[in-house]
């Protein structure tokens, strides 16, 4: 069936106010009598707080309140298993930037001056700034919980007997990789405004991707009934995962509003954002794969070491994510994963676009490139031959409902002329290829319960206006627009007839938030359900009036009419009035819960999803052997999005993913001074990220392998297309100059090191040489699904 709205490159519903400067972000809000808050942060990477003296700050004219840790002692955190943060540190600080005290004053300058008047006496403790240090110095403890000294989480899972799989291999290869930590660097700093009314009700406006989880944390730490708290997510000026958990400043500003009885605003400085971040985990990885002569994988064993920073954040989930999704791209018949997340005295890491999966994807795709070369195989064909089937279950019980990877590969290989270029371009130029997969929403909620993950409520007024209420948060990905397109399609009206009200815990049903690429699939399904309920009412009323059978009616272009005789029909508004007269006030709700996982085991909570998206890309680079500088000439990328609700928005997500992937591949890195734990580059000038000058031409191809679980068949697009970029760049650099840079970012310095090593007769490889030796726990052995139990043997 042809669609009216779905699949059209319509403008986003919020594009106009964003272009005229009208959109009000959190820092743009001003309330009468508003105060400004500032947070005092630790200058030490690890220290005990002996004493805090705030009387001089309190006495400064213009200061209305000063807070310290004892005012907010209840711990919080995004995951129920890692409630390890304090809004203001009580006994200990664990990284440079850990919040210690806060001030509300009549302006930011007075608040800053007041911070300088707060005296804190610290007893410095040894700072553990690397993963190796944290594992070695077990007498120093950053936290008193976890799976071992400074070990936040340690996991070990085995699906099928991997040793048997390795025994069946003709060739086994091991590699070690490192993927540097990076930060989201949203243009908009975190900001929040709190208001506490005389009725004892609190309102928080915040730049957050997850108002629902902020709501929970505020209730817990402030000790207020959740029903007295309203969280409104303001339009988010860039998230990328960096605003998807409750933050100290949100709690602090709320408490200050409660104490002063005046609205209080806080906007973090750019420097603070670098410390607060929750960005990409630096991950050290070891990967061992057994293959047959033709490249068919017989077994894979992956180990990952995550440098988590000072707090838990999403880290338990991140750890599992470094191991969960390897199996959803290629058929891996036996698989073992061991992962560890270590606490260090650095800013805590968390989820950044791709959450824990870009790192192992980089390792896997470069590793496969090396295997193909070792065996003299075509790297494209070797991958293409073992793509997962759909529908199927992976060896770790993930359900593949659709897969358009083969089409993705064919499109980019053909468009880029990969086969004509690979290993054939002149020295200094090269092409690289990689594939990837990502989930369309986490299959399980953070707090395990049986309630929906997404709710949508729609009302229709007598003039034919439609309002859609949903807890989802538009962070620039266009989720508000997607709701409007979907509802407009189902009800046969236009997106501009729809008002979308989102991300307000008082007004909108819960949506868990803009994370894990879940929004289009989950809110989309909920919106379809609600809109279809209303359409049924409209059709029933219209059918009576028109004397046409309900099933013969159709909604299109603001009319409801007889499919067989389109002249015979009603205006949408007229139908709405008839339906309201017939059935009462018009409103409907829809909700969505992902399908249940086919198998429960410890660790099965991470990885399941309603569907998986697929990407393939080719990157062409020009490497200057004199300077080591890598210039990306062009990127060809194909993405299996199931169905593009709006192809232009999907392309925007792909461009953004390519951009961010290139930054991580070539320049971005959170670096800290040894011993001190001070950030080396906490400014937009010093932290290198791609500018318009570095952005290459990108050719996008959308593959629409309709998925049975998606609204109109749609899958995710916001994160998956980042994943193949870093490995494709690394593979292209090797094709260009013959050096393997197994450590991101691929800086000119590393390329030169590789070239020099090669000139001296070395391999030209740059990267980590070993992994820490750890006593891994006995793996949880999970029997694979039936189709993997009888794995073909060597002779078959």
């Amino acid at each position: 069936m042809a669609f009216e709205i779905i699949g059209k490159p319509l403008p986003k519903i919020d594009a106009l106010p964003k272009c005229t400067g009208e959109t009000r972000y959190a820092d743009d809000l001003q309330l009468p009598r508003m105060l400004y808050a500032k947070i005092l942060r630790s200058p030490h990477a690890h220290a005990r707080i002996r004493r805090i003296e705030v009387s001089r700050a309190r006495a400064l004219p213009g200061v209305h309140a000063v807070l310290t840790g004892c005012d907010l002692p209840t711990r919080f955190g995004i995951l129920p298993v890692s409630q390890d943060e304090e809004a203001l540190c009580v006994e200990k600080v664990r990284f440079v930037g850990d919040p210690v005290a806060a001030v509300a004053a009549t302006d930011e300058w007075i608040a800053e001056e007041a911070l300088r008047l707060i005296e804190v006496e610290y007893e410095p403790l040894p700072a553990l700034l690397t993963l190796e240090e944290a594992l070695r110095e077990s007498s120093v403890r950053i936290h008193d919980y976890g799976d071992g000294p400074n070990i936040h989480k340690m996991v070990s899972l085995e699906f099928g007997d991997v040793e048997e799989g390795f025994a069946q291999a003709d060739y086994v290869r091991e590699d070690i990789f490192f993927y540097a930590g990076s930060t989201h660097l949203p243009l908009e700093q975190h900001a929040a405004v709190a208001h506490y009314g005389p009725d004892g009700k609190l309102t928080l406006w915040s730049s957050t991707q997850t108002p629902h989880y902020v709501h929970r944390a505020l209730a817990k730490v402030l000790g207020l009934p959740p029903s007295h708290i309203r969280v409104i997510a303001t339009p988010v000026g860039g998230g990328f995962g960096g605003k998807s958990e409750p933050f100290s400043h949100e709690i602090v500003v709320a408490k200050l509003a409660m104490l002063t009885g005046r609205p209080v605003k806080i906007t973090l400085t750019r420097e603070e954002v670098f410390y607060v971040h929750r960005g990409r985990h630096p991950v050290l990885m070891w990967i061992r794969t057994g293959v047959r002569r033709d490249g068919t994988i017989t077994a894979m064993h992956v180990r990952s070491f995550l440098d988590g920073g000072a707090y838990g954040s999403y880290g338990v989930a991140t750890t599992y994510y470094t191991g969960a999704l390897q199996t959803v791209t290629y058929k891996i018949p036996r698989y073992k994963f061991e992962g560890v997340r270590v606490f260090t005295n650095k800013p805590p890491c968390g989820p950044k676009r791709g959450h824990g999966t870009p790192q192992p994807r980089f390792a896997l795709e470069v590793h496969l490139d090396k295997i193909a070369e070792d065996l003299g195989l075509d790297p494209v064909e070797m991958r293409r031959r073992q793509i997962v089937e759909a529908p199927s279950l992976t060896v770790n019980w993930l359900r593949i409902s659709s897969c358009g990877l083969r089409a993705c590969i064919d499109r980019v290989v053909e468009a880029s002329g990969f086969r004509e270029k690979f290993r054939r371009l002149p020295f200094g130029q090269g092409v690289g290829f990689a594939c990837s997969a990502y989930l369309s929403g986490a299959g399980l909620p953070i707090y395990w319960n049986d309630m929906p993950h997404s709710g949508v409520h729609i009302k229709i007024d007598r003039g034919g206006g439609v309002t859609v209420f949903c807890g989802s948060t538009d962070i620039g990905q266009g989720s508000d627009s997607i709701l409007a397109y979907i509802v407009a399609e189902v009800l046969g009206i236009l997106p501009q007839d729809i008002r979308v009200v989102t991300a307000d815990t008082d007004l909108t049903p819960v949506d868990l938030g803009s994370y894990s690429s879940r929004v289009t699939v989950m809110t989309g399904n909920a919106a379809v359900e609600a809109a279809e309920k209303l359409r049924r009412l409209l059709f029933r009323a219209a059918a009576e009036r028109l004397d046409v059978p309900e099933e013969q009616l159709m909604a299109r272009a603001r009319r409801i009419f007889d499919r067989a005789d389109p002249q015979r029909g009603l205006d949408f508004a007229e139908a709405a009035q008839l339906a309201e007269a017939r059935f009462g006030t018009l409103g409907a709700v829809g909700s969505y819960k992902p399908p249940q996982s086919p198998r429960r085991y410890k660790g099965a909570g991470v990885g399941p999803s309603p569907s998986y998206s697929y990407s393939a890309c080719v990157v062409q680079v020009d490497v200057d052997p004199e300077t080591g500088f890598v210039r990306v000439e062009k990127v060809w990328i194909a993405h299996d999005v199931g169905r593009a609700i709006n192809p232009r928005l999907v392309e925007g997500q792909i461009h953004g993913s390519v951009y961010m992937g290139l930054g991580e591949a070539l320049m971005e890195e959170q670096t800290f001074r040894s011993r001190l734990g001070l950030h080396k580059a906490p400014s937009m000038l010093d932290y290198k990220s791609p500018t318009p000058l570095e952005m290459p031409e990108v050719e996008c191809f959308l593959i629409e392998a309709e998925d049975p679980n998606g609204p109109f068949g749609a899958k995710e697009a916001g994160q998956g297309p980042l994943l193949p970029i870093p490995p494709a760049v690394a593979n292209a650099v090797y094709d260009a100059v013959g050096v393997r840079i197994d450590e991101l970012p691929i800086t000119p310095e590393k390329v030169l090191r590789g070239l020099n090593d090669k000139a001296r007769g070395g391999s030209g490889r740059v990267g980590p040489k070993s992994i820490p030796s750890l006593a891994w726990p006995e793996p949880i052995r999970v029997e694979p699904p039936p189709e993997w139990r009888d794995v073909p043997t060597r002779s078959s």
Partner: protein
Amino acid sequence: MEKQRLKTGSLSRRDFLKVSGITLTVPLVVGPRVLKVAGAEVKVFGPGKVPMTFTINGKTYRAELEPRVTLLDALRNEFDLTGAKRVCDRGTCGACTVLLDGKPVYACSVLAIEAQGKAITTVEGLMQDGKLHPIQQAFIENDALQCGFCTPGFVVACKALLDRIPNPTPEDLVVGLGGNLCRCGTYVGIRAAIAQAARMQRGG
């Protein structure tokens, strides 16, 4: 060089910082004091608030501000013109770009007091008679924005670029927009938007 600039009466930021040390000993007054610096007479304002007058998007705005207040903070906090964003606050990202007498500047790096007497154009002033500027229209049609936080700065920078180079080459676009950052990675869309706006302005 220093002397010449002082003689012409314009006070650069560095000169201002140099003389502001002297003024700290001067009692709080409203209105300028005249000091002799390197043999020349220099008007010194502040500390404390001084009355200022601005022409923003063709309208007159008045406020009493400390001389240390940046043009960006004045626009945002005093006049509620929040289109320009405070992002890096040190002249790196371009999200606060406004026009001073038609020339794009980072409003975070211009003192409000220095912007007096100049025509200030912000993103809020680009719409004419309820009609979008062609560059705004092109941003919407080419999906040249996602979160929208860098968008006002880009829109103003693009307008300035097109005013200067009505037919930009692809190289002009890349270099002309090199002073603005977008973390959503909308650069591809922005290039398409500016090319379309150039065509629209040529009447194509």
